[in-house]
């Protein structure tokens, strides 16, 4: 299981990095979203993997997973949505204002 999660994080990170290195806004936004997934899963996994032990207290539970990374990741997910939304709007704004969606200063100098 650990190997699967690690490889998933690796692939998502790689894809995210590749996409943020593109020269147009939309792929960069996608890349940021991918990196958010990767980072959130990474942070979550620092609490170590446990199956069937949710951090909800009950009399029948045999044990609990680490709740702290989950709490941190939960807010991180919401905040990364907010950041994605801001970036999307910036991308949109620059496209509407300049007529192209390139991100490099050098390329739209005329």
């Amino acid at each position: 299981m650990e190997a699967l999660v690690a490889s998933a994080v690796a692939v998502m990170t790689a894809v995210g990095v590749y996409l943020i290195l593109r020269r147009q806004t939309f792929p960069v936004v996608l890349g940021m979203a991918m990196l958010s997934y990767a980072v959130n899963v990474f942070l979550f996994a620092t609490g170590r993997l446990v199956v069937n032990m949710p951090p909800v207290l009950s009399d029948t539970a045999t044990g609990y997973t680490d709740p702290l990374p989950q709490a941190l990741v939960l807010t991180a997910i919401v905040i990364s949505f907010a950041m994605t939304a801001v970036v999307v709007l910036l991308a949109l704004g620059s496209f509407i204002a300049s007529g192209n969606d390139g991100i490099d200063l050098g390329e739209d100098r005329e």
Partner: protein
Amino acid sequence: MNLALIVILPFLGALLPGVLIRSGRTAAALGAGLATAAALAGVLAHLPQVLAGEAVATRIDWLPALGLSASFRLDGLAALFALLILGIGLLILLYARFYLARSDPAGRFFTYLMLFQGAMLGIVLSDNILLLLIFWELTSLSSFLLIGYWSHKPEARAGALMALVVTATGGLAMIGGMLILGGIAGSYEISEIVGAGDAIRNAQHYPLALALILLGAFTKSAQFPFHFWLPRAMAAPTPVSAYLHSATMVKAGVFLLARLWPVLSGTPEWFYAVTTVGLVTMLWGATVALFRTDLKALLAYSTVSHLGLIIMLLGFGTKAAALAAVFHILNHASFKAALFMGAGIIDHETGTRDIDLLGGLRRLMPITFGLATLAALSMAGVPLLNGFLSKEMMLEAAAHTPYLGNGWLLAALATMGALISAGYSFRLIALTFLGPERTDYPKPPHDPGPGLWLSPAVLVGVVVAVGLWPALAQPLVAAAAGAVVGGDLPAVALKIWHGVTPALAMSGIALAGGALLLTQQRRLQRAGAALARLDAGAVYAAVMAAAESGARRLSEALHDGSMARALAALVLVALVAGGWGFASAGIGPQTRPMLAVNPVVAVGWLALIVASLCLPLFHRDRLLALVLIGIIGLMVSIGFVYLSAPDLALTQITVEVVTVVLMLLALNFLPKQSMAEPAPRRALDAAISAGAGLGIGALIYALMRRDFSAPTISGYHLENAYSGGGGTNVVNVILVDFRGYDTFGEIIVLGIAALVIYALADVLLRRPNLRRLMAWSPDQPRAGDAHPVMLVVATRLVLPVALMVGVYIFLRGHNAPGGGFVAGLVVSIALVMQYMASGLAWAEARQRFEYHSLIGAGVLIAGLTGLGAWFMGRPFLTSAFGYVHLPPLEKFELASAMGFDLGVFLTVVGAVMLALASLSRLSWRAMTDERRRGEGS
């Protein structure tokens, strides 16, 4: 009064003018004056104790382990400076009230002035050198603001920048020196450093510390060759010149040298460095002053010269010289501030301060004439005025100090300085007030009202009173000098007549020579005008130009405007640093066994990996890319469910939905295809990203296979979630209780992000962007029916159910997976569905609450719930809970955390809806009128 309070008072007073300025300049000045007077009263209350030789101290520990504490100490030296700062400050406030023109923003002026006053007071009262350094930099900053107050004048801006660059550079050097000093002494408390004088003077790094500290003091006190900023700072309004640039701030360097005198002085390095710089500054400043025709420039160079004199006296290293230095600080502050204010009056009433255009003012402005003349004669060192007393003590000290083995050299040069000083003082009086009346003054001159002349009159009162009865100043000066030299002061009485001494003869020579200089005025001017223009200003300009072009070249070399390049560099640096960390540190053995994998999980993993790998291959088709992102998000959510994180799964899947909606809205405008990029670039990027992915994957794999090296705090959370937080869903309890502060911050960030989006969209809805929006034509064919009836009906039916689900998820959140975040997202999705089905206009017509207010209400409710804990005497955001039995319902729990979660819920709904609605408003504007009409119904 507590010393910390005295220091804080001016800062509090800085807030008043901004509030009071609406009631007029008088109210603003009164507010500032009140704070100053209160601080002054506080210092005066301690004065009897201080004059008796005791020191008052206050100490507030902050980080004692690092030697950081806010400790204040009021001894004789600090009291002398505090009285100068607050006393002259009060006079300056009065003067400035009448000096500033109606068009000047007076509230800002008084605020800056009070900021400076607080910073300067902080310097003199600090007993911790790190604290002192902070106040030191603050004076540089407030001086920058005040010099540049008339920011429409280029010379004011240039002068402000120059003053800041020179004094802040010196300040940086001084930080280094002070840290070395503290390192040697083993403490940053001045009172303890002063006790370690011998250890410091014998330390290996003493010369370095001395050089750095002197650099700071010399730049601040405008010593040669760093003096050039002071004359250019005269672009400031005259009250500022009188206050900062003659009476107080420029004496900060002098103060510091006096404060550290017991520690640093007495070595040959100190003697030659300090005495020489002071001497050269005294002579050079006086000489230049002789040739200046602008009254303020003349006074500025004279200030430079007198500061040099004080520094030179401190350099002598004898107790008598230190006494003379302290006395001259007091005297110079009184007559020079009065002179500056006089120059300001002349400028104000005649329209010029160029002495070539003045003359003959003695009958036209008799009050100003009287005041300025007395102050100038004191500056010249004429008997029966206070300047004479300290100048004579200076000459006396110089006569007894051998320099380079020569017994009379210093005496001769000091006499020379006094002579030139007398010369420019006489010239100031003669050319401004004496001579025939003119007919061509820019404005018809007359004396101002008492508002302007009262302040200099008080100072001239001090000049004359101390000049006639030196014993008046004796207690304060003795206490201050005692604090400088460390107690045992030579029994010197301040008095006018010491008998016929060498100093008296030197004084006589100086005054006679000064008078002679005045008679040779014309001849002198021709000879010296060119010489007087020399200073280091050109060097400064060259250094600044070089620094500027160097910085530009460096940043252009580092960053060529390509974001991809910058990001690639970032990733590569992280890779190298991470790789180095992996390679250089050992890693423990694997201690955790791998969890087994069941086939369903393997299929999910495969879907995730395949979708991810397809993304870089097919991302140029942007809609397809969104589908792929959706698959990945879904798989991540399922992973969370499987790995015991139901809350995360719920959040992830709901966020996924709103994210995709958001991206679709953006894609409405953006091109649906990305451009192809050249293959080599893609290959390079692929290599970089593969490296990053491998690194991160290896890191998390290594982490997951090992146990925690130390017990985590999660055990505490699990144990106390129910007993302390009243909930069984530990993740939710952490969010709303244990880490409630973090969550509170996060919802604020969320709200801010939504407001940013709203503002950005608003910009796009204005010209010239609006014109582009209106002219925009869809690049894809539109559906024939924008609002299919099936969708409309379905969403309407789903809405109440979805809202109920939201409420359910919210209510169960404390004890089962769910809570404010998830509930907020679910409700948002239900609402967004209505937008999608029926259009913006339809939805907005039925919208009851502004989303802005939802965000505000959410943050407010969360905050108020937190504050509620205060009334129970608990810290912010401590939750309380209890059980309520309401028939016919089951017994249920009510926790204050629920109020907090409600705030979270409202903020999430408001933020998500505001973001999406802003985007849809853009699409709405871009629609053709025809389509819009179809929606409005």
